[in-house]
């Protein structure tokens, strides 16, 4: 099973994502903002990143951009999970290099399906 990093400033969101993904056997690590996520990813390789957009210190778009600049994470799938649903924001995410966009609240079954699809 895969190792997945979830980045969200809300503890309950991280808990829900972790609960959903570990129920099918994935290993889930958590970060509360983009900055912490980058620190965590320095010495560790993950198979998938699920990130929020609005976060303190470093937002999701910046995180996606920074990850895409790294050789290790050039092709790692990155899913954005956010309350934002406007087209402009989505475009911003797409341009930054995100693999997919999920609008909160997520449905566990739907999230697992998407994760399965992007992990291949």
């Amino acid at each position: 099973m895969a190792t997945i990093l979830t980045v969200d400033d809300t503890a309950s969101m991280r808990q829900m994502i972790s609960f959903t993904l570990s129920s099918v056997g994935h290993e889930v690590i958590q970060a509360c903002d983009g900055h912490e996520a980058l620190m965590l990813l320095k010495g560790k390789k993950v198979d998938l990143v699920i990130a929020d957009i609005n976060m303190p210190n470093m937002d999701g778009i910046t995180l996606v951009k920074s990850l895409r600049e790294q050789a290790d994470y050039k092709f790692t799938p990155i899913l954005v999970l956010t309350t934002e649903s406007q087209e402009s924001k989505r475009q911003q995410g797409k341009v930054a290099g995100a693999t997919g966009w999920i609008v909160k609240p997520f449905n566990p079954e739907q999230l697992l399906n998407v994760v399965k699809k992007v992990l291949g």
Partner: protein
Amino acid sequence: MTSWSRWWLWAAVGMAVSLMWTVAFVPWWAALGSGLCAVLTLTVLAFYARKQDETTPRAGEEVLEGHDAKQVLEQVDALMSPSKDIEQIPQVDEVLQSMAADNQRRRVDDLMRRWVDVGQRYAEAALVLRREIQSVIKQTEQATGTIASSFEAVINKATIQARQAMELLEGTQGAASDGVPQSLKDFIQVSDERLNKMADEVVRVADLSVNMVRELDGVQNRTQAIDGFLLDVEKLAEQTSLLALNAEIEAARVGEHGRGFSVVATEVRRLSKRSHEFSDRIRVHLKEVRTGLSKTHGDMRTLSAADMEHALKIKDDVIALTRSLEGKNREVAETVSRINAISKEIAQDVQNVVVSLQFQDITSQKLSGMLEPMDELRSTLYHLMQETVNLDKGLFKNLPGSENWLSHMHDDPAAEVEVKLTKNPEQDLRKVHGATGSGPAVELF
């Protein structure tokens, strides 16, 4: 003007006249009606005339000014008494103007004071609101975290419980290995087979006893036949004895020559007697054998009947037991499928809870979204207030606590008192509702 002010007099006259000249030609009520109409008309006319009267002088002045100002001034001079009033007119204007200016300033001052007051009150309200919103965000975050953790723990425990129950129940449904029954179903099958085999054995033994009884019947019949043969033997012996006796008599009659014959006859009689004795002894033994056979026959009959009964009862019991065990097995299978169905329902409920538990993130984002425009408005208001204060420092003399409210207004929101969260959600929730102090949650007096 004076004549119009006595309109009631004119009305009375009008009414009297109309009454007087019409009463001669029409009934009195018609005359009265027409008189009243006339009075009404006159009254309306009088009011209109009075209104016109009040507005005419200004219009007249303008007309006169435009027409011939000099002439009019002369007339006015003639009408008015020669005095210093005309010199005083410009002074009155000045007084009026200064009064109007004072009035305006007072109104502006009042407005400014009210504006500053509103600003102050908004600043206070906004701070309270901001604190409350942040407290709500923190509290919901804490509460949701607790709910999520508890929920996760509950689900994990429920999963373990369900798995153990399934393992236990599925064990009774598993396959047999090495001839040892592993499942309830196999156990039923094996025990059914063995009990049936045993019942069959018992039935076979019962059958055998029935056969033995039948055989014994034959043996008994034969003993009776032997009895008959013995009678024949006895008869034969008697006849031989009689023949020997006759031979003896005949030998005696012959005399000496018949002596040898007599010895033979005596010997034959002795043999016949012994034969009789043998026959008697055989009969005695045969009687004993028949008594024994009869007893065995009875015992065997009882035994075979009891065996059969017992075997049939065992067979019935085995069938009943098997049915009961099969019923239990069905119940177990139903429970397993019920547990499976409940597990599916729980999975659906879990999905719903996971979706619902994300509300906290959404609501706190919305609440935080409210803070931004509020802070912007507060900042704008702060600058406006500062400008107002710089404009007129005297404005705030009468406001209570006016020394620090403006500085308070620009407080850094981040420096606000944070709600300290504990590990006890009940306590935290009480904090949200404004309950303070360390008293007990429930107190009985």
